[in-house]
């Protein structure tokens, strides 16, 4: 699994952090998503996919 993000799209909702706190964080100054682990281990795949799907601006993209 590989996670890429589009910073310009991110609105700072933070839904990804609520869903997968081991994979995502937010920049302190503007809330833009920070990927903590761009290739997370198998046990975090489901939460990562949920974060991708929940993102209200489709800023997260996951490829296998």
């Amino acid at each position, binding site marked *: 699994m590989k996670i890429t993000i589009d910073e310009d799209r991110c*609105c*700072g*909702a*933070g*839904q990804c*952090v*609520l869903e997968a706190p081991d994979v995502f964080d*937010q*920049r*302190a*100054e*503007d*809330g833009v998503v920070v990927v903590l682990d761009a290739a997370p281990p198998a046990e975090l795949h489901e939460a990562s*996919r949920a974060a991708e*799907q*929940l*993102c*209200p*601006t*489709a800023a997260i*993209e996951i490829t296998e």
Partner: protein
Amino acid sequence: MTTGRIAIVGASAAGLTAAETLRRGGWDGRISLIGDEPHEPYDRPPLSKQVLAGKWEPERTGLRAADALDLRLGTTATGLDVANRRVLLGDEALDCDGVIIATGVAARTLPGEARGAHVLRGLDDALALRAELANPGRRLVIVGAGVLGVEVAAVARELGHEVVVVAPEAAPMERAVGTEAGDLLAEAHRAHGVQLRLGEFVDGLLDDEGQVRGVRLTDGSEITGDAVLIAIGCTPAVEWLRDGPLDLADGIGCDSYCAAAPGIYAAGDVARWHHPVLGRPVRIEHRMNATEQGMAAARNLLAELDQERFGSRQEFTPVSYFWSDQYRFKIQAYGDLAAADQVQLRVLDKTDPGAPKAAALYRRGDSAFGALSIGIPPKQARSLRAAVATPQPWEQALSALDELAD
């Protein structure tokens, strides 16, 4: 009899997410996704922001579609046979195991038509208004001071246009955030040079041989402008369901599982469902809800079709979320801000009236149900969400405001 097909009517965020959730959930039958616009599915929030400002081209708003869809663009659903789960597309009828309705809302408008009078709901609307604003030095009259109206006001000011906002409310975004926070936003917009005509009622468009030249108020006075944006809210797109048995009082009435009838679910702007935590029916026109409810409706439909394979249905109990970008500040809201008995607003920094920093909590009964942040970094504002995710006792929730102030 199983047909091997689920139809989703509406190919915007809610419908698209429902399709993706059906696939991810293990539905291996057909998924027919029906959208009445000719465009590939796209995202709406950027329309009043990045697209209107000319920062993004339309392609950038594209949303990913799930794999292996029977995608019908430019196709309008004309009816639904609820008892037989049959979607009518003109002369064609689709027999389905289940149906998810995600037809969204349509912009309300004023009587009459004129060049230069706009609404902003779809991509084509956004491009038409953007073309208007590409001419320098326009005077734009915005009818309505809701989230859309004031977002466009901010963009138009930043493009250097003269902007007048006219609305019956006492403050911008009053219905979304209440008067206290709305007053702060009024100050911010005035600081940026927007002329606010609040507490005034628009009667209709003024036009000069088919070209708009402003609006007429109910007291007979006029506000002139080169272009008019009508941003007075939306109406659920349910006309195609009128002849059927569904409850269409305000959108499609659903139970707490987002079901409108056996095998028929609804999601997104068009769905009014019973929120068990809030204890009342709600219909939410926010982007985040489209995604979350699209997921919930799809999962519950699968569970209804085959509980053994897909598990049990779950009530849909989201903590609502919306955001708005205006000038250089961001507004974020969590939970239920409507129907508050009391609003506690804390202004954290007022040195620049054009860029306020504030937070607010919304009380109903003895608990905090809603939270709002203005101009606060999103990561910091997330602490407010915790105060309302499970409605906290009011006094306890107030400490979240104290922590932000420190």
